[in-house]
């Protein structure tokens, strides 16, 4: 712990000593991370909305003729036990007929056809999380069709397919923006840390000759990379929070990132900062030794 505090103090000193460069770097990193966080926020809201819509639409399972109420209740309990299923409501053929006749303005279907043509049905709604998964509704409907006494399982194919496609595109966009952000963050951090390292090169040479290990020299730079990314990530999230609050009257119901995603975003920033710092420092560290040998020659 003491050692980490020492490395943190050193990193903070590097940050403070080159505060002009550090500030420019943090601003640039924040801008990139803001864009990434914005895409995450849009995705989060779209996924939540699509989940709610799909869950509301659900699947209507038509049971075969002659299926007893008891069997229908069995199937209701069975489907309710599926992880993706939020609720299963049993609608008897009598209730369905009543509802149809109401929809038809009081026309008696029974009188017209001589019998009730409607089957018993189960109305299945999905959990929001499952509904947000592309293809989940289709998979669940197909699985339900495999059961005896299930005649058909229908859902709004077209619009759910369109929604699924939209979600897939959004996830691809997420990946693309994530990749580009990572690339930009990596480049900015790589350049900044190289500059800091070059500024400390003489000190590093001295440390090497008095017996510092590479780990001792490298660690403050790794902490510096992580620290810069953490500060930038925090700043990006703050900016996003401010922007969302400012636009909240135009975008009612547009939620901010949940705490778990905020934590993940910051953790990801730190890990990425560490990796970028390692990639920047490792060759430079070995370069110091080679430079020294060339100077001697």
């Amino acid at each position, binding site marked *: 712990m003491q050692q980490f505090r*020492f490395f943190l103090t050193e990193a903070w000193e590097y940050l403070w000593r080159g505060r002009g460069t550090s500030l420019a770097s943090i601003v640039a990193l924040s801008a990139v991370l803001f864009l990434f966080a914005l895409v995450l926020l849009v995705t989060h809201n779209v996924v939540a909305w699509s989940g709610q819509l799909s869950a509301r639409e659900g699947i209507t399972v038509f049971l075969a003729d002659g299926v007893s109420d008891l069997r229908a209740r069995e199937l209701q309990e069975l489907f309710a036990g599926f992880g993706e299923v939020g609720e299963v409501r049993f609608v008897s053929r009598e209730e369905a007929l009543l509802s149809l006749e109401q929809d038809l303005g009081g026309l008696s279907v029974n009188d017209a056809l001589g019998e009730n043509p409607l089957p018993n049905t189960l109305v299945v709604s999905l959990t929001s999380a499952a509904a947000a998964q592309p293809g989940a509704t289709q998979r669940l409907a197909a699985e339900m069709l495999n059961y005896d006494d299930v005649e058909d399982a229908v859902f709004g194919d077209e619009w759910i397919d369109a929604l699924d496609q939209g979600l897939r595109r959004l996830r691809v966009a997420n990946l693309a923006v994530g990749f580009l952000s990572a690339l930009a963050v990596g480049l900015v951090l790589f350049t900044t840390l190289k500059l800091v390292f070059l500024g400390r090169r003489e000190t590093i040479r001295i440390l090497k*000759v*008095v017996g510092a*290990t590479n780990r001792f020299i490298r660690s403050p730079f790794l902490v510096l990379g992580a620290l810069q990314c953490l500060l930038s990530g925090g700043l990006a999230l703050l900016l996003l929070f401010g922007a969302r609050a400012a636009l909240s009257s135009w975008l009612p119901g547009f939620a901010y990132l949940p705490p778990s995603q905020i934590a993940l975003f910051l953790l990801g920033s730190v890990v990425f900062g560490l990796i970028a710092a390692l990639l920047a420092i490792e060759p430079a560290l070995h370069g110091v030794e080679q430079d020294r040998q060339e100077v001697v020659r």
Partner: protein
Amino acid sequence: MIRLENVYKSYSGSTGPWVLEDLSLGIGAREMVFLLGASGAGKSTLLKLVTLEERPTKGKIKVHHFDSSLVKERQVPELRRRCGVVYQDFRLIRDKTVQENVAYVLKMTGILDPDVIRNESHRVLDLVGLYAKRHQFPTTLSGGEQQRCAIARALVHQPSIVLADEPTGNLDPAMGAEIFEILRRVNVAGATVLVATHDQDLARRFADRIVVLEQGKLRREETPRARRSVELGELGPVR
């Protein structure tokens, strides 16, 4: 403590020209040995070989249990931490105070207790007479003070070997004598001291043994009689 066996060193390849040529030398514990020679005689290279800043082209060097032909690169920092090195150009970290420069070495060796760091730093700064200037930055010190700071840094982790490469090269004679006096005290306290210099007078005044190098070869060894008798008379045998 330090042993060189038929050491050759070239910066141009395995066939020379040789900066050091067929050099064999043994330095015992608690000895104070001076390497004398003109510029280019190979004194600094010899010191670099001891800390494995350079590896011998041929031959073998043993420092403690570290054998140059066997030691791995990741073990080199451990060897260097057993040595304290003083350079002609001081090599102090400019943006750290005198005390921070000294304390840095302790932190590097894994000592992070603030009380221990403060006590040890004060002890060596007191030894070299820089305690009062411990909060100053190196650039505000005179050459002699900077060199004393470098010596304090070299001593703070209590190394068994102290190497000094032309430590008085940038100093006036009076200050030079003062620096050698500090190194002598370090030697009396138990450290092996190896000094590269071209100052014959000071070498004869302070050395247990003088090794004269000429164009990379060991020309001769001397044991200054005056020094030996004074040493025995004042302190008794140190070995």
